[in-house]
């Protein structure tokens, strides 16, 4: 490279200028494996929202699709005004710009009420034990958790689970309604019904609209790992984020008057552990890993005119960690090397960018979501086997993907703003994998043509099978431990309160004491600020004059690297 600005390889083999590299912890869910057991929802709730004020709050929920979702019909952005829209080519929150938001501080017209979620309730268990002896069996009547009055249960967190809501609620599915608008008549008769489960958490978007509409600036995206969080001390309860989020994944704690949302279990992620929902997922369908992306391209990608190009535009934001220039730029942005290594091994990156089987949820909201989904092949396989066909025969399967338009259109309505081509491609790859692996399982010869037909080769096909079907724990979750992507500490600034002289944080690091560095060129500042004490004491230590090569940034020639020449001058 002769010019100084870094470039990256594009997906089409060209080169494009590279902006600021940022890292994001992203998730992919393999919908074919979700059995709708709600273990993720329950463990999440037990961990985060089993408190008064958050009774109705489900950071993680599992929806049956087609269905209404949670809160009811939340995908209808004509009504709720979540996400972004293009106004004269510029991105504006759909709820309106800054002035409009401030003008509506005192009553947010697009805020869902509890009835759109459900009225949380408990049962009057006490009557069961305190009822006087009589002929009638005492009953525990439902009681509202909001005002304590007797209540009738008319809706719940998963009322339309397994199509339990019947054709009524089903027909109100905003994605189905969208399909009908473009002339797809969806019949909801039993023999044509299809369904699958859609677990949802916060999308931790690259272009989060909840952050954009928060007047207090309490919501923020973390630079290091892209997790979107609410600063509870800065939140003033203006509730704009609730309506700003098109996925309705920011909730209002009605006791504390503060917004709360999925934290991607950041304390666990920081320690290199998967989120609670992932850890406890029975179907092992969740994948966690690092995505590197070009932060300077996000705005441009989110404002692509055609909604159907948003998926491709977002793919173009992602960077290839194998590209040495990307790795170098990542290092310059303060991303540690083990994060770049983790990005290379990232299962999420493999499913999104390599195999191209994972798709974003509702890219048309223009928030650039970062929880992606492998679309389910099961509606199609089921339809085939119901008709007496072989659900794993490649010819049948490919034909069916093409002919079963309704499930395909529906999936496209969820994942690609209605463009069926990427969904079809992903499903074909999954179908090819089934057929390819079935031949192996039946002891037949490997058929690389099956892989080539979907633009892959035999080796990658088997890798994808390993990742999707075997889904080993350490391959599903590749999470480096956290870093504070930080500059050397400012010399004038006192550190954490515990680190003061004699404070409990003021222990001597044995490793530091051992290596007792002599200052390197360009590292003098870090030396004087951070470990001034050690540096001063090093002269008398037995290891004085030694060099810790781990701290050498590769530039210049540090003192102590070579023995002194005679005459005192350094080599």
């Amino acid at each position, binding site marked *: 490279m002769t010019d100084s600005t870094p470039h990256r390889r594009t997906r089409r083999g060209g080169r494009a200028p590279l902006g600021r590299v940022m890292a994001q912890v992203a998730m992919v869910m393999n919908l074919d494996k979700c059995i709708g057991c709600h273990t993720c929802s329950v463990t999440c709730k037990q961990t985060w929202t089993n408190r008064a004020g958050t009774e109705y709050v489900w950071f993680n929920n599992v929806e049956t699709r087609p269905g209404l979702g949670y809160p009811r019909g939340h995908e209808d952005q004509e009504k709720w005004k979540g996400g972004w829209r293009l106004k004269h080519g510029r991105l504006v929150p759909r709820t309106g710009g800054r*002035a409009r938001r401030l003008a509506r501080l005192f009553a947010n017209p697009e805020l869902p009420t509890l009835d759109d979620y459900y009225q949380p309730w408990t049962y009057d268990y006490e009557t069961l034990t305190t009822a006087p002896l009589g002929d009638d069996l005492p009953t525990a009547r439902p009681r*509202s958790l909001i*005002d304590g009055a007797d209540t009738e249960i008319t809706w719940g967190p998963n009322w339309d689970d397994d199509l339990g809501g019947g054709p009524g609620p089903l027909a109100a599915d905003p994605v189905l309604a969208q399909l009908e608008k473009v002339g797809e008549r969806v019949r909801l008769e039993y023999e044509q019904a299809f369904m699958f489960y859609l677990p949802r958490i916060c999308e931790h978007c690259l272009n989060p609209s909840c952050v954009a509409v928060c007047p207090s600036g309490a919501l923020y*995206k*973390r630079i290091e790992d892209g997790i979107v969080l609410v600063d509870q001390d800065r939140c003033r*309860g203006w509730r704009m984020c609730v309506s700003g989020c098109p996925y309705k994944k920011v909730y209002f704690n009605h006791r504390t008057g503060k917004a709360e949302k999925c934290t991607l279990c950041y304390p666990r992620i920081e320690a290199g552990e998967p989120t609670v929902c992932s850890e406890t997922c029975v179907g092992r369908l969740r994948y966690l890993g690092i995505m590197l992306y070009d932060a300077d391209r996000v705005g441009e990608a989110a404002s692509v005119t055609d909604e159907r190009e948003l998926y491709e535009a977002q793919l173009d934001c992602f960077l290839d960690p194998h590209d040495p220039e990307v790795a170098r730029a990542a290092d310059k942005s303060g991303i540690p090397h083990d994060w770049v290594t983790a990005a290379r091994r990232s299962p999420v990156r493999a499913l999104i960018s390599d195999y191209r089987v994972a798709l974003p949820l509702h890219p048309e909201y223009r928030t650039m979501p970062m929880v992606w989904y492998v679309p389910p092949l099961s509606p199609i396989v089921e339809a085939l086997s119901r008709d007496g066909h072989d659900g794993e025969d490649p010819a049948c399967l490919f034909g069916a993907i093409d002919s079963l338009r309704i499930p395909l259109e529906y999936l496209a309505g969820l994942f690609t703003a209605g463009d069926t081509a990427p969904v079809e491609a992903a499903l074909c790859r999954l179908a090819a994998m089934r057929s390819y692996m079935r031949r192996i399982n039946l002891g037949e010869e490997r058929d690389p043509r099956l892989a080539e037909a979907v633009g892959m080769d035999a080796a990658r096909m088997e890798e994808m099978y390993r990742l999707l079907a075997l889904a080993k724990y350490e391959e599903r979750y590749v999470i480096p431990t956290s870093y504070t992507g*930080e*500059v050397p500490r*400012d010399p004038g600034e006192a550190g954490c309160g515990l680190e003061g002289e004699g404070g409990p944080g003021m222990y001597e690091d044995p490793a530091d004491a051992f290596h007792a560095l002599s200052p390197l060129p360009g590292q003098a500042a870090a030396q004087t600020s951070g470990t001034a004490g050690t540096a001063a004491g090093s002269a008398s230590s037995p290891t004085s004059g030694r060099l810790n090569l781990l701290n050498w940034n590769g530039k210049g020639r540090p003192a102590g690297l070579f023995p002194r020449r005679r005459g005192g001058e350094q080599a």
Partner: protein
Amino acid sequence: MTHVHIALWGVLPYLVLGVFLCGTAWRYRYDRFGFTTRSSQLYESRLLRVGGPLFHYGLFLVIAGHAVGLLIPEWVTERLRVSEHFYHLNALVVGGAAGLATVAGLGVLLWRRLRVRAVRAATSRSDRLVHPLLLAVLLAGLTATASSAASGSYDYRMGVSVWFRSLFELEPDVAAMRAAPLPYQVHALLAMGLFALWPFSRLVHAFTVPLGYLARPYIVYRSRGRAVRQAARDGSPARPGTR
């Protein structure tokens, strides 16, 4: 009698001011988590959408009217050739309308608070004190405004306003307030009660008006590490809006 007046108009204002300032500082220091609107819109939206904006926007006008009436001395408007008649007509019509809107909004909100079970259940002890007080302050103020409609009535700019400004000159003009009619005295007294309660109630949310939002970039980035260190990052600086 004089002692009472000195206590009420010469001493009490400073006590209230002290409680107001120290209380707010204390609350901000120890209970930043409690600085919130404690919105009840999740329970009930229809009435709030009428009452909330009506009350708050009315209140803004009322506050602006108070600022003009209390802080701008008479000689300034005279210099600007605003006639006495026009000034008071304006104060009566605009001020009265704003006051009525505020009271109407508060009425809707109070009705909602009493009649919607969920909202009522979420009412705190400080709410129970502050809401009636707020209503009383408003009604006393409206009475005072209405009484100024009568010809030859009390000119508050020669009395109450003089007293108010004298407070900040640390030379309280007790006599000016002593001469004021009862509605004005009651209004001022109740208002002082409101200011004393301010730091300890949900009224603190008034200090958090998010005007900074107008100048902020949409997306806020923050570092895991200390915010101050973020600002010190050289080379590729944090996005604007990063704290």
